[in-house]
Each structure stands twice: as structure tokens, then as C-alpha cells.
């Protein structure tokens, strides 16, 4: 671990989101040509995506069992219905494997198994990952990966913190910021130093 006392004293007490920004930068180096948007939790990220895509033809597919996120997705489905939002769909095992293969081709090799994918007219618009698997103490650490810069910025502004460009026009603002402590632990797990 890096010197946590320094992080704790310096970065933690600011609102500059230094650790969170560095995590996004590192992810974008690992996934060239992509924009990566961190979110405090994967379910909150999926809700933000549903909100921002409510007028589009895109569909959000959650990974089926035995994905560790399948139970969460069921809960999310009920929440979306209860709050009058568009639905997250469930793909069958075969269909989702096909999506995962598309994701690998689109975003590079590696063991990317997204927790959800965003599809539009047969193409992948983005994938949703949960980095918490690398950090046992974390419940969730959502990341949206896309080549669509405009969509990435909308999700950042839906998150309501540490956006990059001019404020994007969004449907509903949420609260999805990583805390610096959360981001720090993920950075340590992936060995990223700011």
C-alpha cells in the first residue's frame, strides 16, 4: 500500500477527487480510445445510464447467473419498475456470452466480463464493470467504459462530481461520486499512483 497517512491527510480532505480522477486516467491508459466513468456503486451507475438513455433505442442488459451481480440486478429491476423507469433486461447465458465476446473485441483483450452491457442496434455502446472484486472490503465500485465521449460526459454529469468538460445536458442528476477513500483503495489494488 502507498503511504496511506499522506493520502489520508492530503487528498482525503480536499474536494478535488484526486484519487478518483487518477483511477479514471489509468483505466483509459489500459483501455486506449475509451472513456471511463467511475461511480460510487454499480447499481447507481446503471440507474444513471437508464435515466440518460430513456429517449434512445439503447438497451441495458445485465449479466445472468452465475454472475455475482445477478441478484443485485433482480433487485434493481424491481426498483426501476417501482420508480417508473425503463427496465434493465436480462440476456440468456448464450446471448450474454456473445455480448461479452463483442466487448472483448471492442475494448481489447483480457478477462473483461462486464456486469452489464449497453447495446444499440446490435452494437456495443458501452460496458459496465465492478472493480470491487479486486478490493474485498468494498461492496461496489462501478465503472462505465465507452468510446462515446458525449455519453461518457453525460454519465459524469449525472454523477454530479468531477466532470471534465462543459456541463452536459442530462435528464436526472444523481449522486455517484467515489469517495477518495474508495478510490484510493481501488488505485492501490490496481497499483495506480497519482
Amino acid at each position, binding site marked *: 500500500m502507498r503511504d496511506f497517512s499522506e493520502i489520508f491527510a492530503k487528498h482525503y480532505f480536499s*474536494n478535488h477527487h484526486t484519487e478518483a480522477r487518477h483511477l479514471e486516467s489509468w483505466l483509459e491508459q489500459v483501455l486506449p480510445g475509451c472513456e471511463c466513468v467511475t461511480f460510487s456503486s454499480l*447499481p*447507481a451507475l446503471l440507474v444513471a445510464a437508464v435515466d440518460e438513455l430513456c429517449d434512445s433505442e439503447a438497451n441495458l442488459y445485465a449479466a445472468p447467473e452465475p454472475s455475482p451481480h445477478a441478484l443485485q440486478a433482480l*433487485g434493481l429491476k424491481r426498483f426501476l419498475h417501482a420508480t417508473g423507469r425503463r427496465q434493465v433486461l436480462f440476456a440468456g447465458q448464450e446471448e450474454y456470452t456473445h455480448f461479452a465476446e463483442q466487448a472483448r473485441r471492442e475494448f481489447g483483450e483480457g478477462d473483461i466480463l462486464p456486469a452489464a452491457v449497453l447495446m444499440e442496434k446490435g452494437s456495443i455502446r458501452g460496458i459496465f464493470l465492478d472493480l470491487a472484486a479486486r478490493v474485498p472490503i468494498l*461492496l461496489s465500485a462501478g465503472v462505465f467504459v465507452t468510446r462515446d465521449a458525449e455519453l461518457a460526459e453525460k454519465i459524469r454529469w449525472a454523477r454530479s462530481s468531477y466532470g471534465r468538460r462543459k456541463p452536459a445536458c442530462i435528464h436526472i*442528476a444523481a449522486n455517484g461520486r467515489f469517495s477518495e477513500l*474508495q478510490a484510493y483503495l481501488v488505485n492501490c489494488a490496481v497499483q495506480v499512483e497519482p
Partner: protein
Amino acid sequence: MGYFTTMNLPAPSHAQFIGRLRRYECQPETAVYDFEVALKEFFEVEAVATFTNCFTALAFALLHAGRGRARTVAIAGQAYRRTTDIVLWAGLQPVYVDNSPDTLCMSEESLIETLERMEIGCLLVQHPMVKICDVSRFLAIGERYGVPVVFDSVEATGARIGGKRIGGFGVAEGFSLHPSKVINAAEGGVLTFGKREEYRSFRQYLTEIGVLCEATGKNLIFGLEPLHAIMGLASLEIYEESRARFKEHYFRYEANLHASKLLELVAYEPEFEPNYKSVLVKIRDPERFSRVDLLAYLESRRIGARAYYAPLHPLADGELLPQARKMAEEYLFLPIGHSVTPADIDFICEQLVNFEAGAEGCGHA
């Protein structure tokens, strides 16, 4: 020279945090349970429920309180900048009520006028900085019109009304655990319940809508991070120490600003045992001294003062909210907490005097 900010409230030491982190790293979920027990004790309430953040917590409180009712929520015109977003995220519609220039919170008279002319599903009453709302009056209004009341009480954390700690009033009360707040968990939100039946009803509702797992009762999708529960536990331990420090800072500002022609310090009322966490000031003559100019001047001296909740949300643009609009130009809050010492406060106040002198010398601000 350092930067003086409103964000850096006292927080646990690194050693305190790491000690707790090590204790929970094998069973992180127990940190959330222990934190909830500690919060219940702190707020002196029947039950608490923790969430990813207060934004989400309050949204669920509104959904639960307003079930089967009109999908409208009455909120103050001048309120925490994300209040409207909370209502919209919950799929509800905000109805703006003018503020009271005396209490700084929602005006009771304006609220009654609103309730007389339209159907409101729920009231979201927010304790402003420094001042405490007349809770019993809002509850009485809610009861008279049959409208449930949810309180956003983070600014009043730790305070008491008639000896009873704020936390047990209304349907539920929401408290943010953000680093700029009194209980600093790095992130997170908590709802407190004065009545056990209300809490049980709330949990049942969350189960119906998929937030709580039917089998385990666990918060599946918007639960508090164990990491933040650990930080929160460490923060609760130092509450009294933090409050003593805030109080020292507040009275240092009071001593410096008592003769100020530029600013009027909004005073705490000791009978409520307030947390003294915020130093809120009002520009006495906003036509003579511009808040924009003052904030820019302070920023140039590395003093991160902030406008108090301005501007009003764009959705309120067409609404008649004269007091809210006036208040939105007049108030700011000054640095306090971890980032400042009493000597720094003297420096900050010296800069305020310099601004006033400079503005007077030019004949305008």
C-alpha cells in the same frame, strides 16, 4: 500559504481509522451493523437505516412517506443545491415554497398557502445552517393538512429540541456523512426513525421495491460501504472534540466580526446545544457590497468561502419566491474546521476588513 476551505471539518486521525480498518477487514459487513448501532445511540432514536449517500436515503424517505399520495414534495425555494435533484431522482415533483428571512428555512405561512391551494404528497423540511426549524410547528401543519413530514437535518446534527436530540421527528430524518459534515464518513447517508413502526414499514417498502433482499434483509443495491461505516465509527468517537473545536472557531469569528459593517454573523442559539459547525454570515448591505466580488477577493487570498446555497434551481425560475431570491444573494459561509486555526481565522477576518476598506475607498464594491 495553505488554502482555507469550508470542506475540512475535523476527522479522525489516520491511526484511529487504520486501527478500525484492521479490525473489520475480515468481516467488513459487521462494520455497517456496528455503525448503525452507534448512530442509533448517538441520535437517541428507535432505529436507523444507512445508504450509499444521503441523496439516495432522502429519496427513499420521500417515496416511502408519500406512498399512495400525490407525487408532489414541498421544498424550500432556497435549499441545499441538490434538494431538487433528490426529489426528481425519486420520480417526484418539487413544489417550491418561499423561505422565511428570520428562520432561513421554509416559511410556515407560505407553506400553509401552498397546502391550501394544491395537493402535496409530502413535506421535505430542511434545517438551514446555524438556525433550527420550528419542528413542532411543521409537524402541526403536516398533521392539520394530513401531509407526512420528512426532515433533512444534517446541518442540525447533534442539536436538541426541548432536550430531545434531533433525529426522532417526523416520518424520518436524513443526515449526510459527507466530509463537509459533522459525522464524517467520507461518504454515506443515514435515515433516523423516532418510531419503530415507521422503521418497520419503511423496511417493508424497501423490500417491495427490491432495495432490500427478501431473504436476508440486506441492502442489495444502495447500501453503505463498509469502508465508510468504519470511517463513520471513528468520526463518532471524536464528535465532542470536534464540536469543541467548531465552537472555539465560531466564537473567534464572533469576536472578530462583532463590529463589522460588512457582515452580520448569524448567531447560534445555545438552548438547542448546536454543533457550531458552520460560520454563516449575511452581507449587511448587498447593494453596496457584492457577494460575487467578496467571494472572488477571498479566493484570491486562498480563502475558500462559499455562497450559501445559491443559485435557486432552474425549475424554480418562474416561481414567486421573493425571500428565497433575496436570501440567495446575501449569505455566505466561511472556512472552519480542520483547515483553520484561530490565528487563521484572525487572518480571514482581516481580509474581510481589507475588502470593506477597499470597497469604501473606491466608493463602490
